């Protein structure tokens, strides 16, 4: 069972890469649109890198494009990846 802290580092790394910021400048409370400038299509396209993280773990589930697009904050992204990496479909 991957811990939230382990997954947080990976999610922040992915977000930092597309938001063109250093990972240490990304905070959990940052809003993907208002603070990090990530438009709806870019958020939607994050389904693939997020799923690459979740599928690394046994029983990990995919994150759909609609789910990724609906994410509003870094915290929400970490929480969703944590749930799916631990096999929680909700």
């Amino acid at each position: 069972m991957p811990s939230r802290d382990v997954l947080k580092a990976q999610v922040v790394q992915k977000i930092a890469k597309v938001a063109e910021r250093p990972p240490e400048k990304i905070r959990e409370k940052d809003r993907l649109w208002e603070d990090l400038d990530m438009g709806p299509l870019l958020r939607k396209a994050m389904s693939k890198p997020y799923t690459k993280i979740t599928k690394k773990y046994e029983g990990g589930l995919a994150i759909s494009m609609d789910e990724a697009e609906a994410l509003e904050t870094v915290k929400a992204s970490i929480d969703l990846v944590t749930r799916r990496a631990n096999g929680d479909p909700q």
Partner: protein
Amino acid sequence: MRRRLSACIVMSLLSTVVQGADWLKNLKVRHSLLDQNMVATPATVAFLKPQQGRSSYNVDAALAYNFSHHVETFSLGPMLELHKNTDLDASQDTLLAGVTGTWLTGDVTEGSIAAFLDFDASYKRDRSAGTKGTQLHATLTPLIKTKHVPLGGLLKGSAQFKWLLQPTVGAEYDDVSEATAGVPTGSRVRAIGDIEADFYPWATRLSKRLSLAVKYLVRLDISESSALNDQRDRHYLRTASLNYYFSPDKTGSAQIGLGLDRVDGENPSIGLSDQEYTQFSFKLKL
């Protein structure tokens, strides 16, 4: 073309995701699914009651349900789209019903390009034109990582002024199999080219609540049945929308704002005939 500045109440329905029950999470509500990769354009319902003359309304709404919600690169499901406007000189009454899907290729965190391939196959009924038939629509929307031009879905610019560019290309097959007396039947193949530019003045200070969205849509008839050949092969639609929302976007709460929309041109994909109008409206985004 009639030019009108009208005041009306616009209810913008859910633009991307409805929170709540599981089935609602897989329901998408948009202005249209044929331009779904434009920066979220909410569905609209407007009603106009002038002091003189008859009242009118318009609806631009598209619903899609995603059955493949446990897949990260593919979505597929039924769709229903309605465009009806009784207020225009040339009224619009188009229904599209069928299936819609999206395929994502590429990883935005690894390569310099990723792309969405969207496709729709639908029954099309256009009461204004008096036609029924089938429409197949496929578009490619790329996310291209560049240093200065915001083509990758990430806003660029300074804290005071940010902007985003979103191009789309594609093709469409529009077949008219039934028509009222005197209206020709046949098929057309159109090339599609759309570009949207979104500007956010005072982006940091206003949390992107003020925006100007400018869109330019082109449809070129590249092949058509002789009966449909009307010598008008180029169709342009230019729109500009200035919106200001009073509160920031928050999950579970509505955003209320004001908007000024300018529409000039036509879009045969959704049965929108050539027109030009300006509309001032209240906006509500959930």
